[in-house]
């Protein structure tokens, strides 16, 4: 192969290496000796528009058939778990929210539940705080599934869907901004409750969203569900059955698309999910199409939960009573995000020395957590999000480990893609919905 601007070649000790930047695949393949080089190794990523972030896939190909897939992760490793050990328990929320950036409220809630279990204060969490957590998590589940739908559709060639998906997600992010002060990285769910009560205008906006979303969901399905290209690209693609899912530890929509109705909200309820009325959608095909249907159905179920949660929101405190745990300030949302309320600052600076001392000790040093370890699993949009938290009795976590569904589920990619076509690697990988921020932490 000579004279191509798209694929330069060079000789290495491992054989001939082509660097492909675009253009015609035939050009590349024509450069390969079909007798001696039956298999070519293609390095996809870590910078690739279809790999959902910095995921690197090494594909061994025979023609267009994938013989072996090896995934390489770790490009987004930021040492969050190590960093947590050097900050106090409350500050942990700020770190964990940055792991899986598409479902920050799940990271925070999982962490808060683990810390509360270590403190033994699960019973003291107020009803309003728990309901707000459920409300926020389900909104977050919808926004995460929308990004999944948007990016997957884009990768399979449906650019319109990408625009629509992000449009509705933006609506949810505006609700988040109203409530938490930030679109992402909220640090809103804290050990002991939530940082700030939900303002009334957010409830209005959520109710508008509940009216709007079913119509929009119908539009997505009108756009995709009967579309021949979408069906071709998803049906019988990247099949993984229940046995394969369980062996590889795959949970979440991928497991449910194979037919097992395993959803921690139903099977091991937390945050009072057992009191909400909703179904666990499943499908039996175990392919990308099934995952698409399951996620769409889950958006509908989440809407049902949100409606119930909004209805049962009654006025009340959103933080535990215990002043040794609850953040001392009544926080307020300012133009630049969330901070201390001016009244509180006026009180501690002008009137009450004791409040100032209390505030100072709790904020700088933090509360102590009795020694021990706990594991809390919650159902994130991608599957079981597990938090293993260990305390040594101090003011900082001794160890926090996240069982990240993105990390665990990605192991299933070779099982899904080997033996299939190279185009289906994209569909299969996308159907796992990996978020590299969560995977690499």
């Amino acid at each position, binding site marked *: 192969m000579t004279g191509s601007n798209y694929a330069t070649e060079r000789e290495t000790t491992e054989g001939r290496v082509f660097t492909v930047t675009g253009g015609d695949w035939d050009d590349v393949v024509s450069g390969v000796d079909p007798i001696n080089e039956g298999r070519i190794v293609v390095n996809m990523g870590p910078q690739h528009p279809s790999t959902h972030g910095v995921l690197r896939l090494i594909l061994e190909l025979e023609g267009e058939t994938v013989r072996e897939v090896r995934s390489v*992760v*770790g490009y987004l*490793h930021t*040492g969050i*778990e*190590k*960093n947590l*050990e*050097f900050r*106090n328990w409350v500050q942990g929320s700020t770190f964990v929210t940055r792991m899986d950036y598409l479902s920050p409220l799940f990271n925070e809630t999982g962490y808060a539940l683990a810390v509360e*279990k*270590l*403190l033994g204060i699960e019973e003291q969490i107020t009803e309003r705080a728990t309901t707000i957590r459920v409300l926020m998590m389900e909104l977050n589940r919808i926004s995460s599934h929308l990004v999944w739908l948007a990016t997957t559709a884009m990768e399979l060639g449906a650019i319109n869907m990408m625009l629509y998906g992000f449009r509705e997600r933006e609506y949810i992010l505006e609700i988040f901004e109203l409530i938490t002060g930030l679109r992402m990285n909220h640090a809103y769910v804290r050990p002991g409750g939530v940082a700030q009560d939900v303002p009334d205008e957010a409830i209005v906006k959520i109710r508008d969203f509940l009216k709007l979303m079913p119509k929009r969901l119908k539009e997505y399905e009108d756009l995709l569900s009967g579309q021949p290209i979408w069906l071709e690209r998803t049906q019988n693609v990247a099949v993984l059955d229940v046995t394969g899912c*369980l*062996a*590889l*530890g795959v949970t979440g929509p991928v497991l449910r698309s194979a037919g*097992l109705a*395993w959803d921690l909200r139903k*099977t*091991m309820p937390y945050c009072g999910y057992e009191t909400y009325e909703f179904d666990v959608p499943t499908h039996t095909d175990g392919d990308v199409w099934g995952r698409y249907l399951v996620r769409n159905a889950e958006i509908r179920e989440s809407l049902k939960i949100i409606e119930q949660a909004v209805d049962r929101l009654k006025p009340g405190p959103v933080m535990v009573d215990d002043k*040794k*745990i609850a953040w001392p300030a009544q926080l307020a949302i300012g133009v630049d995000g969330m901070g201390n309320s001016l009244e509180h600052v006026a009180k501690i600076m002008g009137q009450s020395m004791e409040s100032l*001392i*209390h505030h*100072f*000790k*709790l*904020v*700088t*040093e*933090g*509360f*102590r*957590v*009795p*020694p*021990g*370890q*706990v*594991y809390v*699993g919650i159902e994130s949009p991608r599957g*079981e999000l*597990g938090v*293993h938290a*260990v305390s*040594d*009795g*101090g*003011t*900082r976590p*001794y*160890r926090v*480990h996240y*069982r990240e569904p993105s*990390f*665990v589920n*990605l*192991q299933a990619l070779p099982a899904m893609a080997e033996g299939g076509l190279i185009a289906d690697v994209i569909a299969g990988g996308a159907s796992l919905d990996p978020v590299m921020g969560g995977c*690499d932490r």
Partner: protein
Amino acid sequence: MTDDKPTTGGVPVPVTPAGATSGAPAEFPPAAPAGRGMFGNQGTGDTSGFGGLVRRHHTVEDSPRPYGGYFDEVRDALEEAYPAFGEAIEKVVVDRGELTLHIRPERIAEVCQVMRDDPALRFELCSSVSGVDYLGADARRLHVVYQLTSMTYRRQVRLEAAVSVEEPHLPSVTSVYPTADWQERETYDMFGVIFDGHPALTRILMPDDWEGHPQRKDYPLGGVPVEYKGAEIPPPDKRRSYQ
């Protein structure tokens, strides 16, 4: 760091906190009489919240029976199905509504096999494998923690196996739970625990040529030279002169 507390073990026993002792002890009984200084501080006077970054240890002890809930059933079923129960299980701890079985490291794969296959146990899913470094508590300071989930019975149990830094070997459970593959690689990467029989035990999150195991407690946070105009960031415990 040394710890002269007995290492036998249970429900965590609070140990005198070192470093700053004047925090807000929510549940924690203030172990030392707080009398000196304005706020009862008798340590370094550090009010940074870092407490001088001194770590303290607690020991765990065998829990008395009955444990309550399904924990007794799980233990009995394992004892019945696994003849070597007596020598393989070091401790059984029930704390905060969770059951932890401390397993001799060389037995971990066998125990997992029984946990998965026995009809009375059926822990089909290995939710999580990770590590904890209890530096200074014991010679076997590296603990590998397995979270098993039984979907049939909707139960959870934690297995814990402790190895030393000098001999950080234990059998891989990948043949029982293929999902442990990457999680064992991460544990190797972060703690340097070597899982014998793992198909390809290489680093996964850190670069292949990285030296050291970052999640160990004697590995500093930061301290890696940052390649930016010759600047170097010291680790947090060295950053400001609190001690």
